[in-house]
């Protein structure tokens, strides 16, 4: 990636534009230039960072290294915000809430797990309907597969419940194929 600062704004490009207009003139076949720095274009250096726990700053010009880059900042998982709550009698009080609500984050995971489990179970639901309507036995292999899915949901729910930090919740992944 490359970037240029123009009128105080940094514009980024995946590669040089094929046409470019600046105070030197209007350039066509611009990708063929041999020295992009002559036109104010410099490389963008993106530092490595943990996309769950860190975030990048606004892009800025690093004059010492002659590159456009970012700083890496840790996300404050303990951050809070305050809301004003009004009761039935019109009394206003301030309530402090966590930006990262652990219970809500866990609930989102469980909701996603149950949705995935339902998608996995639904192709064989007709066995259950057939048994209810006609009394036809469900094959043992199907029963075993469906039990495996339900057991996995129970195991994941237990794992999620045991998570204690926002970071561990955000980084939690699951896989029904384990």
């Amino acid at each position, binding site marked *: 990636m490359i970037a240029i600062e123009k009128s105080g704004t940094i514009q980024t490009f995946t590669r040089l534009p*094929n*046409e470019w*207009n600046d*105070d*030197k*003139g*209007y*350039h*066509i*076949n*611009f*990708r*063929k*230039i*041999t020295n992009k720095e002559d036109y104010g274009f410099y490389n963008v250096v993106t530092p490595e960072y943990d996309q769950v726990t860190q975030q990048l700053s606004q892009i800025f010009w690093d004059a010492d290294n002659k590159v456009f880059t970012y700083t890496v900042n840790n996300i404050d998982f303990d951050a809070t915000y305050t809301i004003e709550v009004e009761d039935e009698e019109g009394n206003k009080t301030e309530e402090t809430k966590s930006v990262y609500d652990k219970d809500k984050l866990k609930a989102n995971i469980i909701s996603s797990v149950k949705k995935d489990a339902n998608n996995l179970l639904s192709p064989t639901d007709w066995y259950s309907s057939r048994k209810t309507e006609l009394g036809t036995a469900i094959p043992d292999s199907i029963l075993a597969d469906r039990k495996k899915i339900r057991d996995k949901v129970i195991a994941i729910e237990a794992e999620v419940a045991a998570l204690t930090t926002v970071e561990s919740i955000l980084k939690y992944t699951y896989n029904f194929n384990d």
Partner: protein
Amino acid sequence: MAITKVTSSVLSDDSVSYDKLGVEFTASSALSGTAIDWDVAQVFTKTLSGATTFTYANDEIGMVKDLVLTGDYAITWPSGTKIITGTYDGSVANLIQVVKTAAGQYWLSISKEA
């Protein structure tokens, strides 16, 4: 008495033939440098050998010039240039037409061999 001035009433309609036009309307010139003198020819040709910055001389509003350019290099046109249509293709010959629409304003279209 010598004739010093020709008025339009002297010329009959359709009397100015191609042969009577100046070289700026009829000639083709192979550019050796990067300065394009609009009085010199109607058509200019050049094979680029590196990044090229063109300049204009004697360009007047309403004039149209044709350039046949080849060579896969960056080209810089004078400030005030606007591309109307087309993309330069360095692998073939490109016909570039430039119209001067106002002082310091040039509209440019690019077409190429099919």
